[in-house]
């Protein structure tokens, strides 16, 4: 189908030149509407992506640039910190992401059952998601510190031992997981919308057939909302790949070091347990100014993110051509 042919039903009666002129005008119009974004795409997406590949073969510190072939890539194989960060990211993908999706689904399911105060509950569970991540992290480091933190005060009185989350290497990631579960709001709202979209008639039919609650959930709810579950899981993974603010701030506040004169913070406190790939990239690129090597780390991130983006694109393709009639 020629572009725009459907939009002008009387093309046939016009003269050829007039039709050609109209088509050119339409093409210019599309270009005009898209131009800011097209320029932005070239300047802030295509160019820097290509430049990242180029710089990855160099040693560059903003002042001197030297071509070093594959040395940066070879270094990656021996860079213990890079592997630590990837192991941490894998932990977060395997533990944090599924927990958050399940918790989102659970709270949404609860929301569909609550008859009284449902609106209030929805607001209460949604609001923490809106809280600036830096503020939420600072607050959690305080709330969960063993000396003066209210959480420990309460659990101590109840006789439940609580770990020193953000200062104890094996507990730092579970601490971050709790923080992430507190911000479950967006996942919850998406799940709630999906649950409410399940046709009520299916449930009624199943109830007549004598299906129990679990069987209804397993055979009706899950299949209907599975695309939304997949969407949440994949966006969760992509967000986890970029996980920067919470581990960085938690490490800084818990270790008591910050970007003040005389204090330098190397990400990962305690003991590399919160080090993630973007933090290591930041450290290499913008604190140590190993910009060539930072580009290698960027490409690793890009490769992993692309795999998951392709999966999302396949989901989106189903409605990419869809339009209001």
């Amino acid at each position, binding site marked *: 189908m020629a572009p725009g042919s459907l939009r002008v039903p009387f093309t046939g009666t016009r003269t050829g030149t007039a039709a050609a002129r109209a088509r050119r005008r339409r093409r210019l119009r599309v270009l005009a509407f898209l131009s800011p974004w097209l320029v932005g*795409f070239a300047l802030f997406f295509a160019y820097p992506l290509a430049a990242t590949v180029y710089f990855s073969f160099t040693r560059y510190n903003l002042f001197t640039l030297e071509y070093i072939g594959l040395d940066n890539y070879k270094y990656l194989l021996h860079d213990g910190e890079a592997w630590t960060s990837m192991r941490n990211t894998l932990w977060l993908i395997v533990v944090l992401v599924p927990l958050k999706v399940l918790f989102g689904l659970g709270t949404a399911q609860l929301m569909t059952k609550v008859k009284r105060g449902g609106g209030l509950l929805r607001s209460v569970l949604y609001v923490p998601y809106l809280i600036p991540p830096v503020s939420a992290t*600072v607050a959690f480091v305080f709330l969960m510190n063993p000396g003066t933190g*209210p959480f420990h*005060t309460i659990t101590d009185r109840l006789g439940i031992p609580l770990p020193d989350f953000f200062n104890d290497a094996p507990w730092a990631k579970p601490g971050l997981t709790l923080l992430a579960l507190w911000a479950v709001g967006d996942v919850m709202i998406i799940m709630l919308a999906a649950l409410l979209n399940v046709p009520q008639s299916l449930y009624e039919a199943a109830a007549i057939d004598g299906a129990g609650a679990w069987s209804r959930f397993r055979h009706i709810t899950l299949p209907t909302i599975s*695309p939304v579950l997949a969407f949440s899981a994949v966006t969760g993974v992509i967000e986890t790949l970029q996980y920067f603010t919470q581990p960085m701030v938690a490490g800084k506040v818990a270790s008591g070091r*910050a970007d003040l004169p005389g204090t330098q913070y190397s990400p990962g406190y305690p003991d590399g347990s919160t080090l993630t790939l973007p933090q290591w990239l930041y450290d290499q690129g913008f604190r140590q100014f190993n*910009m060539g090597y930072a580009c290698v780390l960027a490409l690793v991130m890009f490769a992993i993110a692309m795999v998951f*983006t392709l999966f999302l694109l396949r989901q989106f393709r189903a409605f990419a051509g869809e339009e209001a009639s």
Partner: protein
Amino acid sequence: MTAAATSRQRMRSGSRARRALLWVAVHATAVAIGVMFLAPLAFMALTAVMTDRQALTGDLWPRNWEFGNFVDVFSGDMVRWTVNSVVYASLSTVFMLVSSVPAAYALARFRFRGRNAALVVVISAMMLPPQVTMVPLYIVWSRFELTGTLWPLIIPQLFGDAFSIFLLRQFLVTIPREYADAARVDGCGELRTMLRVVLPMAKPALAAVALFQFFYCWNDYFRPLVYADPDHWTLAIGVATFRQAHRVEWNLTMAATLLTILPVLIVFFLAQRVFIQGVTLTGVKG
């Protein structure tokens, strides 16, 4: 009374008891989860009004209510950080709207070759971690001697934001074509049709992307950390360093933290529906 009738009656009352039990269970869980979600905020607020000495104890309840802490917080650089955050977030939002709305309109309304390819590129750009392109962009901005300021984060918004374009496009395709066609028959140009006819119907989506953009910038930590020098620090960076600057004054730290949350809460309660609709729009169609 026959045996069958009594058994039916017993069954009905049994299911009524079960339903009541379920009601209690559901609402008890809801209250428990609600309390757990509010607890962090409550303890932050209580700590924020303690004296600095008491904040260093395990106390949960403030002895003297030091509301002055919220004023003391501003003795340092807090005012400058707030101004920087507001400037950064507002300019970004305005620039984003100006550049992204036409692009979203074109992707939703016009038929042209490569439209689906363009949409794929938008989604890919939306998913691209910002860290991937950071090094070359930093190098470019350093050539323009703009590193140290927030301009490297604001100027790109003049050239479209992938997430906003995608979200707006998702909304615009749901507006029936007839409205725009009618306007065109009446002799409206495409730009006038967009501004006068389509956009007024897209107000909820416009509000959603504007709010998301504003709070994305307000909450942003990574990108200002890369670019801004201490004169251009935003609230997010400032609050992250607050505890170090003020030694161990947890009360002031909590007060400052609460102040960064406050605008978000106010806007949320004023525009709740916009938020919820916006979030739903991004997810449900996947």
